[in-house]
């Protein structure tokens, strides 16, 4: 049985880790790009590296816009949780409110119409909690993502005849529009969702951007190849950080797919910004917490194609 207190504390620790410490895979990608760039684009990336170091040393958030904190929960099929799933959701909401006060995080969550701010990043459908399950396991994986950025994500219904060209056009449109002046706070980890129904398409693209490490490739070799091709296209725009001339638009590009309507090919594009904040913890059946960088959200089981 995993105790309520353990979950609440683990979620609180995740909030702090995500807000302050840049994930190592992304930091390394920015460092590598700073070596390849020159002039202004290089200066911007080097400044970002200084900023990550300052955040970790001072224990202050790397970006004053601490984004929208949210959770991804993967539960082993045999995991037992004190108080059940309702208690788990309560633990995540409580940890969010507590972290907002004590780190502090910016209370970004407001009512969409009345703009009222409960000052704790908790509200209607907030923080979002996405669920997934894993067979033959008794642990609980919690991941938090603090995604900022009003700019850089889009959705489009394409058609099968539009093919890969259609996906490329849409990707270019999105990156060019939001890359200018660096509105997307690039270089970004770009997620592309292809297929599913419209909402699943958005969700898959978002998860592709936020829940896979830089360097990770899709297990389907043809999709992996397309990931490389689209990434190369994004960096060929000639745009770097802040929209200055350069080649650092895309730190990496991940694709996730879902079976879709026979007549359509919905596509979504998401950019995970210079503050690509995510953190994961596994709570084992005994209650021990193991923190790690890789959310390991996608698994053979979650990508299964068969009936079973």
């Amino acid at each position: 049985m995993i105790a309520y207190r353990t979950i609440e504390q683990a979620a609180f620790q995740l909030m702090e880790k995500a807000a302050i410490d840049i994930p190592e895979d992304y930091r390394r990608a920015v460092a590598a790009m700073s070596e390849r760039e020159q002039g202004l684009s290089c200066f911007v990336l080097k400044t970002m590296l200084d900023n990550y170091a300052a955040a970790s040393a001072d224990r202050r958030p790397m970006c004053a816009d601490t984004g929208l904190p949210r959770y991804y929960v993967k539960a082993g099929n045999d995991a037992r949780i004190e108080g059940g799933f309702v208690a788990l959701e309560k633990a995540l909401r409580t940890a969010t409110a507590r972290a907002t006060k004590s780190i502090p995080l910016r209370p970004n969550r407001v009512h969409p119409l009345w703009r009222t701010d409960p000052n704790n990043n908790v509200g209607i459908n907030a923080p979002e909690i996405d669920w997934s399950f894993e067979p033959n396991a008794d642990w609980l994986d919690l991941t938090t993502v603090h995604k900022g950025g009003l700019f850089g994500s889009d959705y489009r219904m394409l058609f099968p005849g539009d093919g890969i060209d259609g996906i490329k056009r849409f990707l270019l449109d999105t990156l060019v529009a939001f890359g200018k002046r660096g509105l997307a706070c690039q270089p970004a980890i770009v997620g592309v969702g292809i297929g599913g129904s419209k909402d699943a398409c958005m969700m898959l693209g978002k998860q592709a951007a936020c829940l896979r490490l830089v360097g990770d490739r899709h297990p389907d070799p043809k999709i992996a190849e397309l990931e490389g091709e689209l990434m190369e296209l994004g960096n060929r725009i000639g745009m770097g950080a802040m929209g200055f001339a350069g080649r650092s638009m895309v730190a990496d590009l991940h694709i996730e797919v879902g079976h879709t309507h026979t007549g359509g090919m919905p596509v979504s594009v998401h950019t995970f910004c210079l503050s690509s904040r995510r953190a994961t913890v596994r709570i084992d059946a005994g209650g021990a917490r193991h923190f790690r960088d890789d959310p390991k959200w996608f698994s053979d089981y979650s990508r299964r194609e068969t009936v079973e």
Partner: protein
Amino acid sequence: MSAPAQTRLKLPASRDDLARLRLGDAVYIDGVVYTGREGVYRRVLEEGAKLPLPPEQTGRANFHCSPAASAGDGGAYKVGGVTATASFRFAKWMKEWFEISGANLIIGKGGMRARDYRELFVPAGAIYLTTVGYGTGALLGRGIRRVRDVFWLEELGNAQAMWVFEVENFGPFLVESDLSGNSLFEREGARINANIESLYRGLKSPALGRFGETGDRTDEVI
């Protein structure tokens, strides 16, 4: 292209100080800056409230930002991170704001349209500095020595209040517009635009067109 030149700038800056800055220079600031965005602009320009400080005590430097500030022990304010907010939304207030506030430095995110520099900034003898990145919240937070004052906190809330900061080695910022109204973003955008058509070459048109498409990918969306 070489790395940008680095400059320390003491505020309030004289016209000569600003004239020395070149597009793309990296600037670090010492002195006083204040935050002001739509809340402050509305209050002063639309509701006629008096500016709480004379221009010489504001550093003449208006920062488009909402700090992550909280009241610490003994009532002193603690500032964690600082990140600018996108400035292009504030252009409509700038002409009057320059007249009333005496500002000659606007600091923010992403700049304004080149036309705004020529029509609004040049007559006021003002330039624009952009934050870098833009997520350099931790670095900029370090540069804030003290919260000297905060006005209209109750009326406008934490994000919209007018915060007055004492800053030291506060930066880096990049010079986005100069006293002649040239724009760094415009210059860089033109370099990138030259390549854009070629990226689309050979990609077939989609089955379904869309309302609102300009067809011209060199346009900006702001």
